[in-house]
């Protein structure tokens, strides 16, 4: 019998707030996390909007020591780690260092640090680059400080797989825990709104004939590309057995994963099938029936095609039930935060499951008739008992991952 994988703590750094309580308060109230981007000079661009983390006080959250050489992305990661461990009520003394590890997701990694380093290399010359900044340049640099700060020696893995990064990280952590039921893993995803990811997104959107700089309105008729976001959510994962041993309190259980792939060049039906396959596999692995899903945390990010694909796939998996299972797209509030998105959705779904209230999809004026096969939730404060929630992540290059969360029963 496989050990049961539980989530016992959540740490959130998001445009909707730092920490679970403020994150949830904003989510439930349908607050829009999108604002004018002011963190970098965007004068060469026509796009203006982004979902930024605005009230991040690194010194207060992780201490002022050494901050100069820890880039903002890594600061998000360390802060989320600290909040998650606190939320789980883990005292690090009770679990030895060689049982503690981290599995992070990030799509872009330290793009900002790389840009700084490359600017120095080009303008000052390769002999004058800063050796102190060099360790910030690999994709997984955001993970380096966490094991040192929190003494985690079991493993430190980073998954860099676009929008599915954090759900893939959770799958990695789940497989690891089955092999090491005595372990405690920090797991999730972190992303930073960097100038070049921002510029690149805008440029690519232009290519695709969409603007992506108006409004994030998943499933709406007006949707026209995603708004880039940032932030992170890390969670504490442990087996039920480990949780009981340390008398911790679990928040939810990861019941099953599913994944699939459809090439970007593939036709619509193939893509819909892939998303359906990922959801079906996750539900199957959770050993439940589709009708038992009470809530779907959608991947939909206001993309003209991807939202449609997800809606049709939901209809394919749930049949007539599709029109009654509430589904919401929190990227309407958070934008598309790539490697962090899946983790932010998981955090939202767990909070919904805990509190019996569902987060809405905001900015919906007219639901796209093509997406009317689903029950897209737009009202605030909808009460619903959630026993099982389904979380989707769909990447632009073709990977799809789904995850089923359940109450710990």
């Amino acid at each position, binding site marked *: 019998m496989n050990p049961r994988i539980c989530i016992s703590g959540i740490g959130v750094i998001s445009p909707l707030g730092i920490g679970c309580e403020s994150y949830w308060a904003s989510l439930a109230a349908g607050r829009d996390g999108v604002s004018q981007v002011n963190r970098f000079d965007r004068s060469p661009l026509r796009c203006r909007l982004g979902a930024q983390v605005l009230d991040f006080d690194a010194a207060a959250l992780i201490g002022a020591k050494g901050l100069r050489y820890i880039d903002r992305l890594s600061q998000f990661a360390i802060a989320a780690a600290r909040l998650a461990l606190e939320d789980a009520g883990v005292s690090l003394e009770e679990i030895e260092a060689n049982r503690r590890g981290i599995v992070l997701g990030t799509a872009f990694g330290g793009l900002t640090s790389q840009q700084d380093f490359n600017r120095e290399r080009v303008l000052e010359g390769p002999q004058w680059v800063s050796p102190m900044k060099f360790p910030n340049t690999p994709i997984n640099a955001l993970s380096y400080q966490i094991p040192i700060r929190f003494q985690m020696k079991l493993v430190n893995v980073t998954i860099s797989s676009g929008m*599915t990064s954090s759900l893939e990280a959770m799958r990695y952590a789940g497989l690891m825990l089955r092999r090491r039921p005595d372990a405690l893993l920090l797991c999730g995803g972190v992303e930073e709104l960097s100038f070049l990811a921002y510029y690149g997104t805008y440029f690519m959107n232009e290519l695709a004939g969409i603007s992506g700089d108006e409004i994030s309105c998943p499933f709406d008729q007006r949707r026209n590309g995603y708004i880039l976001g940032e932030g992170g959510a890390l969670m504490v994962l442990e087996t039920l057995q480990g949780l009981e041993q340390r008398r911790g309190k679990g928040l939810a259980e990861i019941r099953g994963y599913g994944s699939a792939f459809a090439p970007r060049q593939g036709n619509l039906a193939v893509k819909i099938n892939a998303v359906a396959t990922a959801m079906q596999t996750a539900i199957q692995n959770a050993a439940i029936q589709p009708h038992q899903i009470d809530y779907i945390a959608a991947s939909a990010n206001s993309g003209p095609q991807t939202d449609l694909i997800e809606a049709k796939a939901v209809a394919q998996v749930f049949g007539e039930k599709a029109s009654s299972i509430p589904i919401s797209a929190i990227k309407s509030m958070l934008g598309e935060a790539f490697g962090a998105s899946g983790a932010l959705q998981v955090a939202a779904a767990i909070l919904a499951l805990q509190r019996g209230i569902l987060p809405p999809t905001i900015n919906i004026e007219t639901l796209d008739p093509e997406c009317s096969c689903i029950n897209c939730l737009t009202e605030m404060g909808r009460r619903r008992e959630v026993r099982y929630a389904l979380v989707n992540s769909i990447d632009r290059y073709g990977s799809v991952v789904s995850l089923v969360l359940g109450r710990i029963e």
Partner: protein
Amino acid sequence: MKKEIVITGIGVVAPNAIGRDHFLRALQEGVSGIDEIKAFDTKDYPVHRGGEVKGLETIDFGFELSAYLGRTARLALVAAHEAIAEAKLLAGSLDPKRIGVILGTTSGEAQAIETVDEAWALGKQEQLLPDIYADFSSNIVASSISSIFGFAGPTMMLANACSSGNFAISFGGEMIRQGEADIIIAGGCDAFSKVAFAGFGSVHAIAPEICQPFDRNRRGMMVSEGAGVVILEERHQAERRGAEIYATILGSGLGCDAFHLTAPDPEGMANVMRLALKDAGLASSEVGYINAHGTGTTINDASETDAIKRVFADHAYRIPVSSIKSMIGHTMGAASAIETIACCLALQHEFLPPTINYQEPDPQCDLDYVPNRARFQRVDVIMNNSFAFGGNNASLILGRS
């Protein structure tokens, strides 16, 4: 009963050879792939040599590659193409939904990112082709492979810097063991990175002429590029479908030093070697050869030697240890994957790859490093070490087919 994971295909692109057969010969003959860097002018850099893959552009796949595929994806594709063909994955009996891709990388499409950064630094961003921004997310590499070959299983990139390859292979094995896929195309890839070239140069970690792991006068590593891909599957499936088996993955040991960003910790290195032995259920005396991380820096090679002694005690002096980085330099995220392939070839062809450029013994590094010439002898169990930034270490243990 633990499912046994075997390797049924290999594909390699290294600075000293492209393709399995050429690579085998290069390892047996101790051929260096280190040369003056040709892709860009190095006059402003403190050193001028490295390991570039030659002739990548002229490879014929028999199919059209999309124009915006970056160099990392191209390196990975060449290696994947070879491994996939050799393992006969497209022969038809396998379900594409059960075939996945997990590749490791340090920097993804580093050259695309560097090109963009350079253009912006110099105010020449208008000259960039928009497609280049597609490469910012490294998973375009794994996704390209699944797209081109029509696989529909788990497709992802893992970024664990210089131990990425071993992490990807170990994770791939676990995915199969736990039923997430039947076949995983696993490995590592990185294109030549100017960031690495400048960064390691700035800390004087790059050797000016040659890479001399474990030599008393070693002066550093060599920045290189490449890709290594292996096909992983469960033994019974491999036997059922008549696939050639190169090697068995007997065990893996993963760990994190939690010590320092860049400085190695011998105890952390020893830890993953012990864990790998434990996972494989082997005594240290059963290991017949160690394929070292052996970068050629003063501190790495001394620390690794120290760590080997901590794990193997007196037996350490009887185990041959060598570093193929002496021939190909440090291919970053590809390194441990290419080294895994070297181990497969060593098991199959009964030889130990040499540490070339070895001239003078170092009192601190006093093991048998298979100096300069390959040794033709049968070996049954090999340990493959990889250590990375952040103290992320991974050792694999491979056995004969």
